[in-house]
């Protein structure tokens, strides 16, 4: 990894740490309005973001590989198959 990228990552992790600490602090200091029980956990969004992202990637790829993804000439092949049958 290049130096610049390394620095960027350090800044990112630092910012993330600040955000997490600030979230906990804001949650217990200001008691924002809660609509659902999970909003009672100050770090719920972080958890949901991580899990959600993993589920979206793995879940979609599983669906795609099982039946949705086809070769790029799929429809053209269907055309040719059709014209051969005629």
């Amino acid at each position, binding site marked *: 990894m290049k130096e610049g990228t390394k620095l960027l990552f350090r800044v*990112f992790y630092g*910012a*993330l740490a600040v*955000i*997490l600490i*600030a*979230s906990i602090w*804001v*949650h217990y200091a*200001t008691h*924002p309005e809660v*609509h*659902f029980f999970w909003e009672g956990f100050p*770090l*719920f*969004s*972080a*958890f*949901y*973001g*991580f899990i*959600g*992202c*993993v589920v*979206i*990637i*793995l*879940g*979609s*790829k599983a*669906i*795609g590989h099982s*039946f*949705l*993804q*086809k*070769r*790029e000439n*799929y*429809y053209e092949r*269907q*055309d040719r198959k*059709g014209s051969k*049958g*005629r």
Partner: protein
Amino acid sequence: MTDWFHPALIYLLGAFGIPLFKGNVRKGYLLLLPLLALADLLLMSHGLFASSGKVWIFPFLGHDLILGRIDRLSLVFAYVFVIASFCMMLYALQVKETGQHLTAYLYVGSTLGVVFAGDFVTLFFFWEVMAWSALFLIWYRKKRSAYEAGFRYILVHFFGGLCLLAGILLHLQKTGSIAFETLSWGWDFTPEHVASWLILLAFLINAAVPPLHAWLSDAYPEATVTGSVFLTAFTTKSAIYVLIRGFAGTDLLVWAGAIMAVYGVVFAVLENDIRRLLAYHIISQVGYMVCGVGMGVTGTEAGQMAINGAVAHAFCHILYKALLFMGAGAVLHVTGRSKLTELGGLYRYMPVTFHLYMIGAYSISGFPLFNGFVSKTMVVHASAMAHLPAIWLMLEGASIGTFLHTGLKLPWGTWFASEKPACKAEEPPFNMLLAMGLTAFLCTFIGVYPKILYDLLPYPVQYHPYAPAHVLSMSQLLGFTFIAFWLLRSKLHGEATITLDTDWFYRVTGRWVIWFCEVPLMAFAKWADRQVMSVVHFLVWFSLNPAQAVHIKKEEAKLRLKRVVVGHERTERHRHLLEEKRRRYPGELPKLTLGSSMALILLAFSLYLILYLLVER
């Protein structure tokens, strides 16, 4: 007439002036039209023109055509359409084909016609112009795949248009009115509700709600570089507008919208073509708006928040989605490539395009300080106010996916991913960069100063997007999405595949229909044709010499009878004689005397008389 001027006319009439100019004059003229329309809207907002109510009412077959229904809702949509059309035209200025500009402005103008339409007939008229003018933006790509996708696109939209027309006629028959107001909704089969269903179906097709969405992801990525930028804004967002007018608070839309938001995200993971990936995100983002319309029960606080959210999100979406398509279009424009498997490492050549694209990506992902944050969170917040936990989770989940694809996967695969650039590239023409810069500025400006948008919304806004808790929770969500992406980035490389979608049903069954027409149906038609022609041939043969023909037929019957009675061998002579007669047919025609001719004529007349008398009775 003079207290208002329809902004659609500026585009619709102005479009036909485009071929009259050349070079820089034409460029100036193209940019002048949206500015005139914007001035028109400002005159409305500031009360110099009619700023509310209904104007330009024309009597039509006992009903009133209302070309100008002006209120806060139509104005806010008109504003964003006009502003977006300016940015998009700036992006398209280098295109030399007059036809593209002309159809683009017909498309924009007809959308404004839809926005200000106060009755169904006017709505239908502009609705159809919108459908076919958009078609040309696809066909101007002049590739086989574009022609085919265009045909599929227009067939779906003709179907939608016919549903709309059928719904309108049924509605008119039942209620006696063509006024476009909130429609009654129910799950039963009363004619009024069936009319509403048909109209809703047409609206949902244009809003690209699954399973009626495949035309969008099929056709938009096939359009021209500049045409697809126009396409992203108008059809789907005008559908949101008419849904708000006709079906605000319809519970069906809440779920349809939330499912739509997630659906687009799932398909975007699998997509290899960058513009198709972005097209799936149109579907996903429009899902938020459809969901907002569904939650927009009139008279409740959550409902007002939801409608405000849907409108605000439509406004912001038009801007950032245009910016994203401009970025992806710029890559296609300079490299001729749009597949992730054929791209990568382009940052070295196009850093400016990358950074401008990323502003669109931050906006769509809802980063604080960008416009998606101030609008998307309104819809999500409305779902919290209405206590819909599943909807809330689906919408938040879709936010994750949005950032993952448009903010991470796409730019990573296009501008980075490999150390070595996949191909030579350069920054796009200056006007394209300028258009992207202007759109990026608007995205950021609204994000930093949301009041300017909130003041335009139909209901007063009591929402503070920059409450610390909102900002922090969104930052957590996006930050950890990035971490998950970074860990799994190897799984997100483009794959050279296409993804089957609901267009499979009509692309494959369509082929079966064509096979059915070409094989069994044609065989039947040929058979029927042969039968009819054999009767005709017989009649022609018969009329050559009816007396002899009757004689031959009589002999044939006799021969057949004889064969049965005395056997084949002993009828040989008879057969020869008959064949001889057939060969000589028609032979000498019998000469009729005058008397027998008269007798025949009289016979014919008397037959006719009998027939006439019988029928008369």
